[in-house]
């Protein structure tokens, strides 16, 4: 039996079927009323750099999830994010899941959160605000789905934004996060996904790409939704063999022999 979200589990965790969960009083995080990924928990989720993440990006995430571009009713403390997930090792098709991102007790950790929220659209440009918010969402989602812990920020030209350690993984890899404010035009997010995939794979054999769109056409839902891609990307063997680089490698191998 599988959970209604279609997953049997995530890294280090197994979700029993809904009936079993009810019996055992366990709540599946993918259930609409399940647990919420709280922005205030970023330091606990990512011990090496979570404090910095919360400082720098949590308020921006609240702003983009709750105030602009889709204002939520007063008192809203979380928002559902629809996720298109390609999990490791990256060879399975994407699954569609939901997570809820919340900020219930964030004000206990960010002094004057309400004032910061009022200031933000005037102190930060819209592009940076979206980019920061997307990084906060990425940090929550990658920890929850992949059990990955962000280690440190990567410098310019590294391909990704953060170095990330996967539970049980031998070597760290990269994650690149990016945000889109409004994807009214279809294809914007996919184009960005492709661009970031290429960017990550220029300097790393694999990695994660996370693209969060804060106003995405809702499909069956009445208003715009928040949508996020969390894709594990890998330089596929077919690509290695094919294409100019693959051919060059083959030629070089032949020469050496």
């Amino acid at each position, binding site marked *: 039996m599988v959970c209604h979200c279609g997953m049997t589990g995530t890294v280090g965790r197994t979700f029993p079927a809904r009936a079993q969960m009810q019996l055992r009083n366990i709540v599946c995080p993918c259930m609409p009323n399940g647990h919420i990924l709280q922005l205030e928990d970023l330091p606990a989720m990512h011990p090496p750099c979570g404090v910095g993440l919360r*400082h720098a990006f949590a308020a921006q995430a609240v702003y983009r999830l709750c105030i602009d571009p889709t204002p939520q009713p007063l008192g809203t403390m979380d928002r559902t994010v629809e996720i298109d997930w390609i999990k490791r090792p990256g060879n399975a098709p994407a699954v569609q899941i939901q997570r809820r991102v919340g900020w219930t007790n964030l004000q206990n950790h960010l002094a004057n959160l309400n004032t910061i929220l009022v200031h933000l659209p005037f102190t930060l440009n819209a592009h940076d605000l979206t980019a920061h918010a997307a990084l906060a969402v990425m940090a929550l989602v990658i920890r929850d789905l992949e059990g990955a812990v962000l*280690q440190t920020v990567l*410098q310019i030209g590294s391909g990704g934004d953060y*170095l990330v350690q996967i539970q049980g993984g031998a070597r760290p890899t990269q994650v690149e996060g990016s945000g889109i404010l409004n994807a009214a035009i279809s294809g914007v997010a996919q184009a960005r996904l492709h661009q970031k995939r290429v960017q990550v794979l220029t300097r790393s054999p694999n990695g994660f790409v996370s693209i969060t769109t804060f106003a995405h056409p809702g499909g069956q839902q009445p208003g715009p939704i928040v949508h996020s891609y969390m894709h594990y990307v890998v330089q596929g063997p077919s690509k290695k063999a094919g294409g100019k680089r693959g051919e060059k490698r083959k030629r070089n191998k032949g020469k050496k022999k």
Partner: protein
Amino acid sequence: MTTPVIDRDGRSTVAAAEAQAALASGDTPRAQEKYREAGALLERCIPNHRRQSEKHLIRFLAATQYYKGGLYHKALNLCEHIQKNLLPPDVVSLFPPFIRDVKSRASADYTSRVRKELLRSWTSQDNPRILGLLQDHPYVLPPGGVAFFRAVICENMKSYEAAAAFYAEALRWNPNDPSLIFAAVALPLKFPSEARIDEAWEYVQKLLKTIPHAATFAVASIVCFHRATAAADDKEQRRLSNDQIRYFDEAWAAYLSLSKDQAKDPELYLILDLAFETAAISLFRLGEQLRAKQVCDEAIRLGPHSPNTWTVRGIVTYPSDGAVADFQNAIALGDDTYFPYFYLAHNALARSDYSGAVQFCQEALKTRAKPNRRIEASLYGWLASSKYVLGSEKDEVETLFHIGRQIDPENLDLEENYRVFREGKKEPRVRPAREWGQVAIQHALDRMKHFPVSSPNPKVLVSS
């Protein structure tokens, strides 16, 4: 992995994140301090790396932190030790535009250039441009100045919540500058005279949250007075008047807790004086004459040299000997409105002192601020009747009645006195004026209209 890990312990990342958060909340000194820390932490780890390309990359990263913290000279010094050709290939193209920008910002005229640009944008009222400039160059003004600039821009954009937050921020940086509070309340004070009462109310509520000060409470009470005056029915008017009195009481309590220096501020006194007046008149309108008088007594104790407070006490206690004395006092202190003369004219007429009535009517009609239609017509009627009793020519009296009837054809008192005159009787009717309440409200509204409110102007910040 071919990417070197530079900030292994994450300290520089955390410092930069704290700097970023400080910048987002407008705290530029803290942002500067934290970016400086992030840059220094990066610089410190240069010796730990063997490869030249890594050393130069770290210098570049540290310079970036200094740049973000507005430490342009420090960034430039570091950039001068970076060899472009030794930077990693992915990064090398980023360096030339970066150093160009750093050089530009480290130049002697950088601040004045940006300030001039701000001034130009202010003159052309290009609000998005100003916001963009302040985001890109957050260190060209002191933090309080940036907050004030943003507050005014937010007002222009009708983002009153943000404006209130930025005024509070500006005040946090300049706690001893009361002019910031008066700048913050300027618009809600001005809006009612432009028939923008709802907007004034929306704004003042936000200000009460961020700047709970005697001035903001006083302005809230004044705006409530306008809302009550414009109310659709008596019940609503009563409710809003009660709100007004509540805010007025809070203003007074807050005022009493101010230091002597702050309490002495002439601008604060002007605002408080207006709050006193509108509170007294609202209480008068609610039928609470005794409380209205008590409020006026307090106002006179606060500012015994203000003619206005004497006039208001006269209005709420008229008819009485005390009221007459108050009006005379107001005139002696230089009240240049028609109100004290209007009441004294009525009082003279009631005592059959026709020459006194003529004198006061003429004074009232001479004042700078023109009385409203109804009051002006009454004054002409009283003047005409008094002159008729004193033996003036019928033609002159007829002319005065004619002027009054033209101004307000529906003035019943005037019509009655005109009828008495036409009948040849020299016994003008002097009834208590029908609209004493209206007159009182008119007094407050007139005061509002002529209240000295100047819109806040951040030009001084950039031109200094």
